[in-house]
């Protein structure tokens, strides 16, 4: 009854008209609904008067994080952040599984990936100059997330991107830089586990899960929470950076060497490392 998968049906005919109608209805509903909502940034709206004042007044005192966003994300709603980290981790695992299994299905050894250095001396030098700054900025974003925009998530993405830039420029032939897929996976797992570990530790010391205030780190509660938040952010950092590396490694693993790149002279046999 149902059509074979792979045949895209939404090309023509009734389903397409139905799709267009559904889209129009959704759009109409959204527009009609949005007219009723409070204006963007309205200080009298419920979003600004109900829960937010507590965060604005007490976040810095209670959690030790001057950046309210960090306080909410990592402390008040740390459980959500744990979930988001798990979402990213799930995406990394999914890519790894689906692409690795797809390669195994074709009964071929996984393609060697970006074998050629499509770089040139200019790219090489630029990468050498820029990468340390990118990596350092990533760490800065992680640590400075308490007082300014940023945090583990953005820092992790930046750190991963920095490593990816090197891989892009140097290919696999250059000296190994950054983690390989296995090490990246270990890093991602360790990050998620570290986040959960902080939560379990808080439980072990008599608090709720993720209740940083109970951790025996010395000092007053706000300070302890601040330190624990930093730990959590570092865990997110590791998980995200690891996942970014896993994603890039698995997705770029099948990139074929183009004709042009071969003619540009990559002499060494593919898959000489991995």
């Amino acid at each position, binding site marked *: 009854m149902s059509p074979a998968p792979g045949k895209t049906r939404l090309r023509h005919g009734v389903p397409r008209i139905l799709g267009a109608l559904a889209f129009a209805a959704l759009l109409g509903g959204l527009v009609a609904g949005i007219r009723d909502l409070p204006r*963007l*940034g309205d*200080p009298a709206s419920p979003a600004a008067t109900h829960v937010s004042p507590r965060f604005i007044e007490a976040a810095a005192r209670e959690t030790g994080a001057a*950046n309210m*966003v*960090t306080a909410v994300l990592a402390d008040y709603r740390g459980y959500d952040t744990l979930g988001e980290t798990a979402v990213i981790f799930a995406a990394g695992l999914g890519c790894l599984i689906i692409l690795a299994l797809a390669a195994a299905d074709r009964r071929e050894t996984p393609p060697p990936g970006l074998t050629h250095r499509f770089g040139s001396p200019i790219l090489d030098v630029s990468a050498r100059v820029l990468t340390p700054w990118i990596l350092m900025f990533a760490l800065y974003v992680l640590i400075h997330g308490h007082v300014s*925009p*940023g*945090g583990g*998530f*953005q820092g992790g*993405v*930046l750190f*991963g*991107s920095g490593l*990816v830039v090197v891989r*892009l420029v140097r290919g696999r032939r250059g000296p190994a830089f950054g983690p390989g897929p296995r090490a990246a996976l270990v890093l991602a797992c360790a990050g998620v586990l570290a986040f959960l570990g902080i939560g379990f530790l808080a439980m072990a010391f008599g608090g709720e899960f993720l209740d940083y205030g109970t951790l025996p780190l010395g000092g007053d509660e706000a300070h302890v929470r601040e330190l624990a938040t930093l730990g959590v952010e570092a865990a997110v950092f590791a998980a995200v950076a690891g996942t*970014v590396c896993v*994603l*890039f490694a698995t*997705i*770029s693993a*099948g*990139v*074929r060497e183009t004709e042009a790149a071969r003619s540009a002279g990559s002499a060494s046999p593919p898959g000489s490392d991995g």
Partner: protein
Amino acid sequence: MIPPPGVIGVGLLAVMLVAATAALFARDLLVAAALFGVFSFAAATWFALVGAVDVAFTEACVGGALSTILFVSAAHRTRRWLD
């Protein structure tokens, strides 16, 4: 108090709308990836404009830089053109 987005905000929203629609109908996957990058940067600027600096930062990191790289890598694994 955050000032209302104004002309620049409306312009950014228009850019986002156009870029997203164009990416949807682009036949060339690399063009679609590039248009998605445009969308992300416009979105990041818009977030910054309405005061969500953290969100803007994240959007710039993820949408503008990382996902574009991943999209291009993924496009290399497939045929470049949709038919």
